[in-house]
């Protein structure tokens, strides 16, 4: 199939895994997914320093400002003279970071350093910079992050590499067979998370890299006997962490397929709770009765596997019309092929195409799952979740059905909610 240059395409006519061609891009103002600033703040006591030009800096520093966390954020602004003189970029970066750290009341134990595209393109000697900084501040761990969006269309994204860099500083601890750690995700396990619930019920100590109270607790992740990652952007870092510490990793994003959920539970040595299966099925049936043929739209920011969700909804008789996404995770190939065969009219809709720049209020009630779907559909009836919301398994399905029911019954203020950055983080703007 040819790659489409249109804003939307029926799945039967689409190509895998890239349904849409690259072109000029529009950016919808929905920002609930976590960015690199939010992710960095998940490490307690860490201070973030960005070294970049004004315009690039503005987005991240205002993220910090809106979190009410400017006291853990500093910057070194690059100017033309940093580009034009040999060695000036290294000097400005090294001396700028040094000056920031000397001005702080106390040198932080962890500093996350974000050089940018320019450092890469100018061949900046970052190793020398880190060596110098580590000599000057021997008690500080420097996390080697990057903010280089120019790389994100090929290879790994800044988000993936930041998660890896944050896991790189976790020291190897003595293995505690009673401890399991969720790593690489931003959303903590929700009420409807079968893995977390069963681990706790079995008396297992569960750590979560996104929610530790102290740096000591964050470092204690290195004692976990098993790691679980439920978010694709965290997979690479989690795999490297597990390999380094020689412990098993289970990569298990929320899936809506019953057989796959059961297989994953068995892989973890957990039970398949028959009543949980029944509860999920009942909740699904009740929701179907309530919303009947109401059109539904979903997007890729809501859940890690949107095509799995799409298949689930369609197989259960829901009137799913549109999936908003720009690419398809290769892990979703089976669901993609199934949908293409059994539900060929399903619409795949790009979120960055030049044509759609304003929400158009729908003529009929549309239920959306995810902020981008809500924005593009212009609907106030939406499930406000990102990154899977910590849901997993049959409990996750039951909770999602409950969230859909609430969303169907109670409209939300999209203008207030959707532009806020980092769902679940502090957001202090007016």
């Amino acid at each position, binding site marked *: 199939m040819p790659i489409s*240059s249109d804003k939307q395409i029926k799945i039967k006519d689409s190509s895998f895994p890239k349904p849409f061609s*690259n*072109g*000029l*891009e*529009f*950016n919808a*103002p929905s*920002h609930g997914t976590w960015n690199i600033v939010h992710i960095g703040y998940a490490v307690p006591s860490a201070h973030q320093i960005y070294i970049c*030009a*004004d*315009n*690039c800096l*503005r*987005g991240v*520093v*205002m993220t910090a*400002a*809106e979190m009410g966390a*400017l*006291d853990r*954020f*500093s*910057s*070194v*602004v*690059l*100017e033309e003279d940093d*580009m034009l003189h040999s060695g000036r970029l290294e000097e*400005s970066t090294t*001396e*700028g970071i040094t*000056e*920031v750290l000397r*001005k*702080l009341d106390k040198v932080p134990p962890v500093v996350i350093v974000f050089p*940018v*595209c*320019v450092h*890469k*393109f*100018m061949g900046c000697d970052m190793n020398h910079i880190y060596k110098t900084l580590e000599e000057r501040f021997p008690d500080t761990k420097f996390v080697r992050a990057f903010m280089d*969006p*120019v*790389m*994100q*269309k*090929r290879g790994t994204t800044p988000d993936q590499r930041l998660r890896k860099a944050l896991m790189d500083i976790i020291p190897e601890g003595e293995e505690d067979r009673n401890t399991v750690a969720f790593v690489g995700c931003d959303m903590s396990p929700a009420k409807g998370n079968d893995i977390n619930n069963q681990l706790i019920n079995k008396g297992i100590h569960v750590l979560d890299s996104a929610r530790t109270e102290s740096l000591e607790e964050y470092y204690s992740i290195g004692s976990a006997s098993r790691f679980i990652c439920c978010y694709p952007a965290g997979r690479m870092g989690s795999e490297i962490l597990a390999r380094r510490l020689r412990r098993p990793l289970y990569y298990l994003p929320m899936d809506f397929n019953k057989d796959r959920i059961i297989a994953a539970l068995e892989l973890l040595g957990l039970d398949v709770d028959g009543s949980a299966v029944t509860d999920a099925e009942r909740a699904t049936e009740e929701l179907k009765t309530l919303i009947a043929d109401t059109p539904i739209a979903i997007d890729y920011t809501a859940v890690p596997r949107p095509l799995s969700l799409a298949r689930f909804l369609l197989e259960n008789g829901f009137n799913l019309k549109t999936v908003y996404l720009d690419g398809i995770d290769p892990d979703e190939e089976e669901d993609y092929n199934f949908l293409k065969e059994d539900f060929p009219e399903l619409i795949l809709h790009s979120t*960055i195409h*030049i*044509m759609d*720049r*304003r*929400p158009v209020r729908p003529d009929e009630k549309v239920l959306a799952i995810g902020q981008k779907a809500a924005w593009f559909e212009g609907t106030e009836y939406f499930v406000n979740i990102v990154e899977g919301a910590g849901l997993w398994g049959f409990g996750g399905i039951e909770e999602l059905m409950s969230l859909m029911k609430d969303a169907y019954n109670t409209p939300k203020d999209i*203008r207030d909610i959707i*532009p806020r*950055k980092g769902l679940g983080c502090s957001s*202090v*703007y*007016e």
Partner: protein
Amino acid sequence: MNKVYKILPVYTGDVSGAASALYELGGMTVIHDPSGCNSTYNTHDEVRWYDKESLIYISGLNDIDAITGNDDKFIEDICYAAGKMKPKFIALANSPLPYLNGTDFKGITRILEKKTGLPCFYIKTNAMHDYSKGVSEAFLSFAKRMLEPAEKTAGINIVGATPLDLTNTVFEGEINANIAYGTDLESVLKAPGASLNVAVTSAGIGMCEYMKERFGIPYVCGLPWDSEYKDYRDVRRGSSKRYIVGEPVISGSIAARLKVLTGKDYNVVATTEITEGLLLPCDKKCHGEEEIQRALADAEQIIADPLFRLIAPKDVKFTELPHFAMSGRLYRKRIPNLMNMEEYIHES
């Protein structure tokens, strides 16, 4: 080192400034930059995104195209979008990587004009300046490419207005063209027929100078209280420890107005880039957090965006004047109509 910001945010950057300046003029502004970079603009630097459509796009530049200087894809993508969206003109804005590799934007605009038949122009940005430079460059480039002599009118032109500086400010009086906030292309094209230009921000000066030279239109600098078009620099002010921090034309206008109304002297601490000829001897230009902090060290009173509290002396009398280009959405509901001074100046 004036490049170091321990705690203070930077102002909106020049690329966002350029996009903001042209937002309402019916063109297509393309920022040659990687994916993700435009979310800064639509999240923190633009108040109209929900309500007023505009063709602001990024090229989605990737590393290979940047390294190999692959301009063909950039040109093809713009032609495709122009064919679909039918803009009135095309404006191209630069960013750090194309700036570093010396992308020939002027050459690209010539190719685009031939291929699309639309007026195209280049805005000299590189993401390393503040918004005032970007707004200024955008208005100047627009004027050079788009403005032609127009029928004479009695009204004046407001020049240099964007929501970055004048988020909730409304100008009254006989206005021929507002360039360019709460406006449209048709009215802006009538600008050369006006009798007077009023530069309401430092970003409007470049366009006013150009229009003076090309169309013979004189200009004054300053906010036009009571529809009186006076130059704020004509009001003499002496040194004091009362400071107004921010963009120089707006800050200078407020200082002049306060001098006239109260007899008190206020000095401007200009914290945005374009200041040439805009400050009185008692005023200061500051670059970077440390310089600003030093300039405010002896302050008795400060009128500034609330974020400047972070570096202000502890017990200073502080009057909050939220500025969208500094604090973005943080205090947006408190941004006043600058023409209603009683909204934001108390007990001065």
